[in-house]
């Protein structure tokens, strides 16, 4: 019945697991935190490396286009120069006229009848251009070169064209075969930026240059142009160009980006070449980041989505401008971004990849989360395993111990514990086993010792009971002796008075002058003859009559005195009779209950002590109503009362005679009990003495036996009552109360 046993409110296993769990959790939290930091650091490094790599690769790829354009143009320049020289000795007109014709609008274009723009180089000459032979030769030379190289370059460049300094344009653009036909007759072929870039004042190094973004008014394409000038004999002759569509550039540079990053192209002067959010609809010129470029009339710049974006872009541009020459990775702390920059040498463009830092930190955070989840998972698993192990290895054995302890406490020493274990618990179990065995052994011995002890105690108790009975008997006899001593002393004293009175009376009777009467009678008889003369005349005779009168008076007096003495004798004798009668009535041994009139008993007790009370001038206050007789041991009650009254009398010896007062009251204080109170105003009893006075052999008087109160209390108990003492302390008198069961006589008799 394990439910009976005390089950601990706090489990050891649970407490240990809790502590362990908390510690492990702290370790996991720290691990997670440090792994997050580590991941952040690592991932950041990796991301930046990747960024750097990406930017480098991409810039190299972009660079490749420019280098290719540069190479193409170098090749074409040489070819054009050679061709122009080759044409300088020939007549250009027949060929020129077969290919081109002047239109009514004044412009010169490829002849329509034999023209196929998808396979052929087209020509456009705005009106007003003077077509001299030299120019015609150069046009045909340029035509040959474009026709020769255009298709070859078509794989990487959609078009190839040569613009001559006088205005003619020779164009290979198979996707736009009708470009020369669509161009307006006054199309300012040398007025656009892509050509102006090749002018010596704009391009002193005479290198391949790239235009800004612009909208081709003919094809309505957004594009940039690479242009390389050709000078012959110190004079700017022509410009060789490739167009690159912005769409193409966008799809290559912008749309192909790192995850969560975006790319943009910006020129050194702030011209935004490409940006994912750049809005070109309705615009005619590109977007200028600083906003300082002057707009010509009718030009509409491209836009960005919002002011925020413009500011953002401005911040990026500022950061770019202020960077160190070889710095590849920049930080933009106010936007939490990393910038990777690569400069394209030819066009003075910057390829920029913008990577938000949150990409790096969130990746680190994700990794840390895995660590955390894994840690928590391991923690729970560890706790479960630990719980199981502790339950098996610690809690269960401990519970066994607890139950064993309870069994031992309950007195069952048959304890079975697992003592086979080799660890501390096994050691404990063995120790416990040994202990319980020893306790059992001792218990056994103790039980045996107890049994014999009980036997011995029984014997002693029996002996004590016998001794007590004897003592009781002795005490009773002693109580009787007390009464007898009192009686004998009192009787002896009274008897002395009787004897003395009787003797004195006798002496007085003997001394009576009765013989004088006879002597007078004799004298008078002698003088009978002259009696009259003798009584009147004779000297002796004259005295006879007065003598007789005196004598009579004397005799009467003496008789009175003797009578008084005899009265004393009678009184004293009666007193002795009383004492003896009381003694005879109460001193005889029958101890049977009999109908007793308590009031009479109280009177008897007072009578026994009467002489002493009178001698000591004790004033008696008696309130003893006559009650129904009760069945009790008359002798015992009397003995108690005599003792109490005697004690009270002694107690008042030290106070002045006139103040001595003894109060005796008989009270029926409940239907079943009656009380007799003996109260004196004597020396009183100290509180510590109130119980001692009932002890056997205790007495405050030299000649006292110390049996009185002891035997009285015993007798009261035997009567089924109690004897109590009460006192306010020394000098305040004392009250002894004898309480007896009140059993009306009628009930007993009918029974």
């Amino acid at each position, binding site marked *: 019945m394990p439910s009976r046993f005390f089950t601990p409110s706090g489990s050891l296993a649970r407490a240990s697991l809790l502590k362990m769990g908390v510690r492990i959790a702290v370790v996991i939290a720290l691990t997670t935190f440090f792994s997050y930091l580590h991941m952040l650091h690592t991932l950041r490094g990796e991301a930046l490396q990747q960024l750097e790599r990406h930017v480098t690769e991409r810039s190299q790829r972009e660079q490749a286009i420019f280098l290719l354009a540069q190479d193409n143009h170098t090749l074409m320049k040489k070819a054009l120069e050679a061709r122009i020289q080759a044409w300088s000795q020939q007549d250009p007109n027949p060929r020129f006229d077969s290919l081109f014709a002047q239109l009514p609008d004044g412009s010169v274009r490829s002849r329509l009848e034999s023209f196929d723009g998808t396979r052929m180089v087209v020509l456009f000459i705005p009106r007003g251009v003077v077509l001299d032979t030299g120019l015609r030769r150069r046009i045909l030379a340029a035509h040959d070169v474009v026709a020769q190289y255009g298709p070859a370059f078509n794989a990487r460049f959609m078009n190839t064209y040569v613009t001559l300094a006088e205005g003619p344009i020779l164009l290979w653009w198979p996707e736009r075969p009708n470009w020369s036909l669509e161009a307006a007759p006054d199309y300012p072929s040398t007025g656009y930026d892509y050509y102006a870039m090749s002018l010596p004042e704009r391009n002193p190094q005479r290198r391949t240059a790239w235009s800004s973004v612009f909208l081709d008014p003919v094809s309505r394409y957004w594009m940039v142009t690479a242009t390389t000038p050709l000078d012959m004999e110190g004079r700017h002759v022509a410009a060789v160009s490739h167009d690159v569509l912005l769409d193409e550039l966008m799809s290559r540079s912008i749309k192909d980006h790192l995850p969560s990053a975006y790319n943009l192209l910006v020129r050194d002067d702030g011209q935004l070449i490409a940006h994912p959010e750049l809005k070109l609809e309705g615009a005619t010129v590109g977007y200028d980041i600083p906003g300082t470029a002057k707009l010509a009339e009718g030009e509409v710049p491209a836009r960005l989505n919002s002011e925020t974006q413009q500011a953002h872009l401005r911040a990026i541009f500022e950061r770019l401008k202020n960077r160190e020459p070889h710095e590849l990775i920049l930080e933009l702390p106010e936007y939490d971004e990393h910038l990777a920059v690569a400069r394209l040498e030819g066009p003075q463009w910057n390829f920029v990849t913008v990577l938000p830092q949150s990409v790096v930190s969130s990746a680190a955070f994700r990794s840390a989360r895995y660590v955390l989840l894994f840690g928590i998972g391991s923690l729970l698993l560890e706790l479960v395993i630990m719980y199981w192990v502790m339950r098996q290895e610690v809690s269960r054995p401990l519970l066994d111990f607890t139950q064993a302890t309870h069994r031992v406490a309950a007195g069952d020493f048959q304890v079975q514990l697992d003592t086979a274990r080799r660890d501390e618990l096994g050691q404990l179990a063995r120790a416990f086993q040994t202990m319980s065995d020893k306790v059992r052994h001792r218990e056994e011995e103790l039980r045996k010792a107890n049994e014999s002890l009980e036997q011995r105690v029984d014997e002693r108790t029996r002996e004590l009971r016998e001794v007590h009975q004897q003592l009781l008997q002795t005490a009773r006899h002693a109580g009787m002796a007390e009464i007898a001593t009192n009686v*004998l002393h009192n009787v002896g004293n009274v008897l*002395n008075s009787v*004897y*003395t009175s009787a003797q004195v009376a006798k002496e007085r009777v003997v001394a009576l002058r009765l013989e004088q009467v006879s*002597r007078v009678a004799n*004298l008078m008889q002698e003088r009978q003859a002259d009696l009259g003369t003798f009584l009147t005349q004779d000297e002796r005779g004259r005295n006879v009559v*007065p*003598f007789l009168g*005196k004598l009579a008076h004397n005799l009467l007096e003496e008789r009175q005195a003797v009578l008084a003495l005899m009265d004393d004798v009678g009184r004293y004798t009666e007193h002795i009779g009383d004492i003896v009668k009381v003694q005879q009535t109460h001193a005889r041994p029958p101890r049977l209950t009999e109908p007793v009139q308590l009031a009479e008993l109280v009177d008897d007790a007072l009578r026994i002590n009467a002489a002493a009370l009178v001698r000591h001038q004790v004033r008696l206050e008696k309130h003893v109503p006559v009650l129904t007789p009760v069945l009790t041991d008359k002798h015992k009650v009397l003995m108690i009362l005599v003792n109490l009254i005697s004690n009270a009398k002694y107690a008042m010896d030290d106070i002045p005679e006139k103040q001595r007062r003894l109060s005796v009251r008989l009270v029926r204080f409940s239907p079943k009990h009656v009380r007799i109170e003996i109260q004196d105003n004597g020396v009183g009893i100290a509180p510590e003495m109130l119980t001692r006075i009932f002890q056997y052999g205790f007495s405050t*008087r030299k000649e006292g036996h110390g049996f009185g109160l002891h035997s009285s209390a015993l007798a009261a108990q035997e009567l089924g009552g109690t004897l109590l003492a009460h006192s306010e302390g020394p000098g305040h008198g004392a009250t002894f109360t004898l309480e007896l069961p009140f059993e009306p006589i009628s009930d007993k008799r009918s029974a």
Partner: protein
Amino acid sequence: MTLSKKRILIIDDSEAIHLDFRRILCPERVRDSELDQLEDSIFGEVPSSRSTGLEPFEVDSAFQGQEGLEKVKEAQAHGRPYALAFLDYRMPPGWNGIETLRHLRQAAPSLQVVLCSAYSDYSWQEIAQEFAGSRLEELRKPFNSQELRQLAHRLTGST
């Protein structure tokens, strides 16, 4: 009237006993001198038939041992010591006879003492042993008046 009266001290807790002693040792009966004269004038002198006059005892009372001792000391101080003391054995609550006797022996070693008791709850032998050599007699109650008178006369030395 020649000598001063012999002084006797009664030490007893019972008044009746004192009365008894006085009745025996100091009879209150006063001789009627007028009657005596008349008798003499009629019958002539008859000295033998008449007592010697007043009893030669002056009786004092003490009701406790302590009081008795005080009176004995006082009497000695006034130069009128008691010739004899009657001492009761039982005198509760104070000293009993033996205790009182010890004190008396210290205060007045030569005082003649008669120890009296109505009930012999002591051993006379032991007492006699303790107070051997001192002037001590025993008187049993009830006592005979003649015997007492003789005892008093004998012990006080007055015939």
